[in-house]
């Protein structure tokens, strides 16, 4: 409770209310007011999620901070919220990134500022709702509503090909969501009239139905992750989105898909999950190896990081579907870490793009001569992206590999190639952009990052290094929930 109000509801609705207020500031005449209000909203929004961390009991896997109210009685749908160790961390991550995005867009966005800031604030609230919803229809409402601000963000403030990208993004994700809706309704009838996710996790389901439900969920979540072969929207969306949009896509949106696997697919259809795990692992390995190679070939920095995201998310799905504690905890750490690292890389590219208005690697060269401070930060995040020990990425990847090797050596062998490819594409890009002689007159005119940009990158550095050096606190929070999930997944839910 904060001031007598339930924490999760505040975490969801406070940013949305601030978003509406920011929108009410009107056109660009009041841009500075809109920015200040947005900053206040995002900071407050982050502040109100802190009690979730401080008040969290990491010894239990039960849902905490539960709120349960009637909503649509006719269908037994409730306003049912709660967090466990997994969702709590993502809510914090999301609220934190909202602050980053608001600061990152401070000077860069000059057109329709209030709408831009409002869209991010509203989205922040909605995403918190996705992570906290325990009623599947409430989840679905947040899940779909999340698309609307993102659709607008990419479409209005994006690059030249933004409309194609945003349409593709929306329709791709909608396809999966609609199939999931049918699955949810089917489960509702199976449980005899409950939409609670926790009830779904208990009900017995015949094998054929489990497989069909798994496939429906797969479409919804795999598109969001994104997994090979439904990943093609991501490079388009990432490349065309404004910097803030790319950051949120990478840091938050992709996590929502993997979270769905954890919350829905695996506990609700454990038998189908086991049966189809081979396919999931195969798709994950293809993502890791093949997409890693694709990333190597990119001439556009944002596209390169986008492909690298797909490849890294392959690690996450691999970790989930090998069904052991190392894999799963590693996958979760990888999700968090990827949020920080990919978010930071997109911010770095944004810094360059704001100055040069180009994302082409070939347009750069010798940036270090003009932007030494920036080059240092960029170096750190590039290293983190290639999984250097001491950075957060290493912990997750290492744990997933440990888990995988217990299952099958060759899986682990294939997955481990990412350590080579990842280093190759990231560092090669880094070399071409940063090192060497100043390549052209535009680079010559570059100015180093200002205090605002240093602040953002420094904040992210703290997390990337902090989690890399001392991941224990995060692991402790996850522990109970992960173990509970593994127990769930191990039990067959076929009807007797």
């Amino acid at each position, binding site marked *: 409770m904060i001031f007598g109000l339930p924490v999760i509801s505040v975490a969801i609705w406070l940013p949305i209310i601030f978003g509406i207020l920011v929108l009410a500031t009107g056109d660009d005449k009041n841009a500075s007011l809109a920015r200040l209000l947005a900053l206040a909203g995002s900071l407050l929004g982050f502040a109100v999620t802190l009690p979730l961390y401080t008040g969290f009991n990491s010894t239990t896997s039960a849902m905490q901070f539960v709120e349960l109210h009637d909503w*649509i009685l006719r269908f037994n749908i409730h306003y049912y919220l709660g967090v466990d160790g997994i969702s709590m961390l993502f809510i914090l991550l999301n609220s934190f990134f909202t602050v980053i995005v608001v600061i990152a867009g401070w000077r860069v966005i000059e057109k329709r500022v209030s709408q831009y800031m409002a869209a991010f604030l509203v989205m922040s609230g909605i995403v918190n709702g996705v992570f906290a919803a325990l009623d599947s229809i409430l989840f679905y409402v947040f899940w779909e*509503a999340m698309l609307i601000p993102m659709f607008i963000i990419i479409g209005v403030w994006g690059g030249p090909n933004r409309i194609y990208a945003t349409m593709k993004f*929306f329709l791709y994700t909608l396809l999966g969501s*609609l199939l999931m809706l049918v699955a949810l309704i089917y489960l509702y009838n199976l449980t005899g009239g409950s939409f609670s996710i926790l009830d779904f996790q208990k009900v017995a389901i015949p094998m054929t139905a489990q497989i069909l439900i798994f496939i429906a969920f797969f479409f919804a979540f795999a598109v969001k992750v994104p997994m090979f072969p439904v990943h093609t929207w991501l490079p388009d969306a990432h490349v065309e989105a404004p910097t803030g949009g790319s950051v949120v896509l990478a840091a938050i949106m992709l996590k929502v898909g993997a979270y769905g696997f954890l919350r829905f697919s695996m506990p609700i259809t454990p038998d189908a999950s086991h049966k189809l795990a081979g396919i999931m692992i195969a798709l994950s390995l293809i993502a890791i190896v093949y997409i890693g190679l694709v990333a190597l070939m990119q001439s556009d920095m944002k596209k390169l990081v986008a492909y690298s995201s797909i490849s890294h998310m392959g690690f996450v799905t691999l970790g989930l579907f090998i069904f052991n504690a190392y894999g799963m905890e590693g996958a979760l750490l990888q999700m968090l870490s990827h949020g920080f690292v990919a978010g930071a890389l997109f911010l770095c590219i944004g810094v360059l793009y704001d100055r040069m208005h180009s994302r082409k690697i070939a347009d750069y060269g010798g940036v270090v001569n003009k932007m030494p401070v920036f080059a240092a930060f960029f170096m750190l995040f590039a290293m983190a992206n290639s999984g250097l020990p001491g950075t957060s990425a290493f912990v997750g990847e290492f744990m997933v590999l440990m888990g995988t090797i217990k299952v099958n050596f060759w899986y682990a062998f294939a997955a481990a190639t990412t350590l080579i490819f990842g280093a190759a594409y990231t560092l090669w890009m880094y070399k071409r952009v940063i090192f060497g002689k100043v390549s052209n007159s535009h680079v010559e005119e570059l100015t180093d990052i200002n205090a605002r940009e240093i602040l953002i990158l420094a904040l992210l550095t703290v997390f990337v290094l902090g989690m890399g050096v001392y991941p224990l606190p995060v692991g402790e929070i996850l522990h109970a929930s992960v173990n509970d999930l593994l127990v769930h997944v191990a039990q067959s839910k076929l009807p007797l």
Partner: protein
Amino acid sequence: MNLMANLLPAAAEIFLLVMVCFILIFDLLLKQNKIYTYLFVQLTLLGCSLVTVGTHERGVFYAFNGMFVDDLLSDVLKMLSYLGMSMVLVYSRQYLLLRGLFTGEFLVLALFALLGMNVMISANHFLTLYLGLELLSLSLYAMVALQRDSAIATEAAMKYFVLGALASGLLLYGMSMIYGATGSLELGVISNAIHQGVQDKALLAFGLVFIVSGLAFKLGVVPFHMWVPDVYHGAPTAMTLLIGSVPKLAAFAFTVRILVEGLQGLSTDWTGMLVVLAIASMALGNLSAIAQTNIKRMFAYSTITHMGFMLLGLISGGIEGYGSAMFYTVVYMIMSLGGFGMIMMLSRAGFEADTLNDFKGLNQRSPWLAFMMMLLMLSMAGIPPTVGFYAKFAVLNAVVQAGYTWLAVISVLFSLIGAFYYLRIIKLMYFDTPESHVPIAVESDTGLLMTLNGLGVLLLGLMPGTLMSICAVSVRQSLLLH
């Protein structure tokens, strides 16, 4: 006593008829300014709703030897149709004024159409049903033709009239066969006769086919949809708004009364037919809507799709199914009122904002209207947190419960196609630059109504429970489900 028992269930219709006659005379006395007629009409609608509420009693009442029925379903639908009609008039006033169509005839015809709808909603007999339908249709034909100097409107009226007459003929032919097979025109008696077994099954089946075709014509579902795009496109937008919104309530009641109350015993037969109609409508409606450049035609195809989706509820059957179909129809009415209302708000004297390009850059010209339109479009596409989602959700739930999960999967795939052209409108409004910068003159009453309409779609989406329950309860209390 007997007289009162007959008159009371029809009190609202009688009141409406009396008032229409008054308004006819009143309007003659007014020379120029029709605003008083307009206010009189709005007051009549208010009066009608008071009468409907005042005479409402729990239970099902039959009047005029079973020709007419007054139950919760009819009362709820009537209240909604008064509301819808009132909104239609508010949206159309300025548009019609600018085109010189804001005449007493328009207002009176609108009320006659409403009377026809109310009779359809309360009918319990093939003759009453037909009477109501014709009263509605004839008023609408005349309204489409009201713009005499417009070739396209006249063509639309002709098409509407000829095809409408054909559909009425089909219906009548079907009704006569059912009469031949069961010996009655009253729905309850027909239902009983079918349950007890009818000698001539073939005759009954033939009759059913003709009736379903006639109904499909009136609902505008594939393959009986040909008139819909042309009429929607050709008619002045105010008439399109009227045709496309409130009569759907009556069409729903009409369909439910005939198929559920009258021909429930043949439900296995008509369910199969409706499945074909529904799938064909969703497929053709969605695919054709993508190709349209005229927004009125696009909405026409979208109506076809929505009606197809509504049929899914009827196919599922039971209180869930009929309740969800009713909810869907009500929600559809609210959304289409807003959609067509928006076209009229963007139009001005001598200019029709009826192509997609007219919506380009609306966000820059009027952010608030663009936002309202976005809410309406998201609702039509069925994206939460708007009410359109719950309409789809309720229907899908009924479909899955009835065991047609495959049908639910097909229908969501078609909704995905549908989402594209609704999103395209949002894209035009938010991402493109406007073609003209003529300021949008918004009257305070239409502006307020549009705000209520748009926010209503959102608020009903956040709190859909009440409306859903009303629909379910009225179906449960009113329909005799065997």
